[in-house]
């Protein structure tokens, strides 16, 4: 498999909800094999819409979608797409609908036509991989928030997707589960596109960060978002900084370091841009 193979190709995509304002306008987006991309943008800027367009849950008003080198237009095309791309929903309660964990995780493999024994085996392996051994017969709605999120991830991973789309996966998670998720994402060898509002989380597990503005996707350097490391109280919690103010407050020696890091980030961005 070609490392830099173009997997998702959006050309001139526009989308608006019926009677609503335009969410995406003339958007171009390219996703390559091996990409690990973070998407950070204000609420309502169309991040979730983008993921749903990739999965074919929404259809664009104009534009061309090509996924895995084939044009994706109707349900039939997207049936194949859904087989190879996994979407983790924002709300785990939307994803887990079966009474027990095992049934839910096995649902995907069974839909792919796997025999029952094999589906159960895949489900158990996936659960074990995520450290959820012994969860098989737990009742889905009685799980805690963090457990629900990990089980949802298991239901997606059990389909052995090539690309993972994660819609705000760390929303409402505690530090421990967040760390667990970070560990999992960095250990699986998958391309993924991750939506989050958490700079620090993104910085550690993605190679490039994009943002969205006016219905278009921008590479982060165009907006001067950058990875930086610094210490202050409550720094482990998701937060934002006023960048210009902050720059002023950094001692000169450290500022150099920050600039170096930024240089690195930009370099890696350029890499993924040219790839």
């Amino acid at each position, binding site marked *: 498999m070609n490392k830099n193979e173009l997997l998702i190709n959006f050309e001139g995509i526009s989308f608006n909800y019926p009677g609503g304002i335009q969410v995406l306008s003339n958007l171009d987006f390219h996703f390559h094999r091996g990409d690990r991309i973070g998407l950070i943008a204000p609420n309502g800027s169309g991040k979730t819409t983008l993921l749903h367009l990739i999965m074919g849950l929404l259809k664009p008003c104009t534009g061309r979608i090509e996924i895995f080198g084939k044009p994706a237009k109707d349900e039939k095309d997207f049936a194949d797409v859904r087989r190879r791309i996994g979407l983790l929903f924002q709300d785990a309660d939307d994803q887990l*609908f079966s*009474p027990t964990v*095992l049934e839910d995780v096995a649902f995907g493999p069974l839909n792919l036509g796997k025999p029952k024994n094999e589906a159960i085996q895949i489900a158990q392996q996936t659960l074990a991989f995520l450290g959820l051994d012994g969860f098989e017969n737990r009742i889905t709605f009685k799980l805690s928030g963090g457990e629900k999120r990990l089980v949802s991830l298991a239901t997606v991973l059990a389909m052995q997707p090539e690309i993972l789309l994660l819609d705000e996966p760390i929303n409402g998670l505690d530090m421990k589960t967040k760390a667990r998720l970070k560990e999992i994402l960095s250990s699986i060898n998958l391309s993924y596109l991750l939506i989050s509002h958490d700079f620090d989380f993104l910085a550690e597990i993605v190679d490039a960060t994009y943002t969205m503005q006016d219905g278009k996707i921008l590479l982060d350097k165009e907006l001067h978002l950058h990875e930086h490391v610094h210490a202050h109280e409550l720094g482990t919690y998701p937060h934002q900084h006023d960048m210009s103010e902050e720059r002023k407050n950094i001692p000169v020696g450290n500022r150099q370091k920050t600039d170096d890091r930024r240089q690195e980030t930009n370099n890696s961005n350029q890499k993924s841009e040219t790839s």
Partner: protein
Amino acid sequence: MISEPFAIGSSIVHQLDPRIRVGFTILYAFVIALAYQFSVLIAALMLSTILVVISQVNIKEVFKRIGMVNALIFLLWLVLPFTFPGEVLTRIGPFAIYRPGVMFAAQITLKSNAILLAFIALIATMPFATLGHALHRLRVPQKIVHLLLMTYRYIFVIEQEYKRLLRAAKIRGFQPGTNINTYRTFAYVIGMLFVRSAARAERVHQAMLCRGFKGKFYNLQEFKTGMGSWLFSIIMTVLIIGLIVMEVSKGKAF
């Protein structure tokens, strides 16, 4: 939170094949519902009680449930004896108490309790998911089974959403009373629940599509029918036939 107080246990009943339990409970309930002989109904009530005892469920919880049903039946006792015309049993002041009314109320009382106890002993002693799968194996259409299971799955989510909405109203000083504002608030809450449920259903369906859902559900649970289950089947068959014979052989109830 809706709980399943009887579902987990280690009694003989809990170990029986769920399909057999469901099948015989339904059959048994039909026989009781169609019977009129007091001897049959009393025998059935005793049999159901024995089943509850064998299933070793929490007696306090059982009484709580029986209490609820009998509160409803009590209303029948307030109405039926006075309104079902026929032979007059006795008179209280200007009101006549009719014999068929009393008989009818007594029959309903016995039937409901016998059926309820049987369901507690045999059906409530399995988790809801198992019940769904058992029904599916008994050839209940898949769509109905999954409607049941999905309802059960999302009733908790809807309950949470309802509580969340009510909390939101309460922290802003909402106090329920008998006034138009209260009715309007509840109407908003209920309306909002419908909207949210519809949106939720849409998202669940999308999530299912993403995992390759093609309209078919799969059941993973395997059921085993052991010796105990066969023995139970034989005993239940004999008892049910016995009840039917009792019902048919005697004359009319009234």
